């Protein structure tokens, strides 16, 4: 059995189990809020409970951490599966995966940019409001990250003494992956908050 076949299973497990582990936000209560509470004083959770209760639908809440992990794992798993499926195995190997395939920061940064845009658009579509400053800061993170990480990899990530240049483990794979994961984490943490 190919080892990458386990990754989607793991991702599905995380995607299913992690949200269930979080406390579901009110499913039953249709009771009116206490009279002393003004509408403007209600928290987002209270409003969510009301809507969910009225619709009789259980709304599960997923924490930013879990969401980051799910996005990160799914991105990597799907990418590896597609590469496994589309490449010819190397001579003498059962698969065509190489060291370059361990470079995941690209996918995580792209996922972060897309997630940010989707969250912003969906919030705007639902008539919600989001903190424009926070969105600008995230945009700044992307601009700096997209300008810095690729150049860092190009200038530090390759052993230029070999022909063709070989990808270094630390500066070509581990550090850029770490940078991509941290950008994804920041985006999803603030995006999850923005999206309620």
């Amino acid at each position, binding site marked *: 059995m190919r080892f990458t076949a386990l990754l989607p299973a793991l991702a599905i497990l995380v995607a299913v189990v992690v949200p269930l582990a979080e406390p579901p936000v009110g499913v039953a209560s249709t009771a009116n809020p206490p009279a002393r509470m003004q509408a403007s004083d209600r928290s987002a959770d209270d409003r969510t409970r009301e809507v969910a209760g009225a619709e009789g639908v259980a709304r599960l809440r997923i924490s930013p*951490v879990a969401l980051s992990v799910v996005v990160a794992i799914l991105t990597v798993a799907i990418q590896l599966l597609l590469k496994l499926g589309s490449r010819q195995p190397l001579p*003498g190997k059962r698969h065509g995966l190489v060291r370059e395939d*361990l470079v995941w920061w690209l996918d995580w940064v792209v996922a972060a940019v897309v997630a940010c845009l989707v969250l912003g658009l969906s919030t705007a579509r639902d008539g919600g409001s989001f903190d424009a400053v926070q969105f600008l800061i*995230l945009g700044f993170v992307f601009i700096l990250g997209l300008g810095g990480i690729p150049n860092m990899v190009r200038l530090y990530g390759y052993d230029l003494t*070999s022909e063709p240049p*070989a990808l270094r483990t630390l500066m070509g794979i581990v550090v850029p992956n770490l940078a991509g994961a941290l950008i994804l984490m*920041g985006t999803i943490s*603030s995006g*999850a908050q923005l999206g309620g």
Partner: protein
Amino acid sequence: MQSEIAKFLSLVLTSFSLLISLAVTVAALGVSAAVLVGLGTVAFTVVVTVAGVWLVGTRTRSRYAEQVMAMARETESMVDTSTEALEPELSTEVVPAFQDIGVERTREAILEMIDKLDLPAEKAQKERDFVARVAADKSLARRDKVERIVRHFASKRVADWDPPA
């Protein structure tokens, strides 16, 4: 000079990007939760990446050993073909995979491979001496030692070995 500036700039941009990303996380989740999330993200990324490097490296090293042993047992014409097949990935896959495990473990892996080759005692000893000499050479950097050893056994000089009876 320009290259040094570009290197410096790339590090500064990346660092700022990560610092702002961390600050955004702290602003969104609070300090204690952000520390937990940050540590979790770092741990997850490092573990998954290192596991991937280890897995791909293990398979690459075992394939290298298989290729070298196959070369030693084939006829001369086959040796050329096998060497050519291995050459493109020597620089980008095989040498880095051995560099990841260091000189000492590379030496052990190669000695183990030599034992499996069934070479005549004199030739096997010559190869062991070569590995020991390169591994102990203080004028070579760690990376160069590994590369020299790995390339030696992937080179066409292997064709000089006597095929097993």
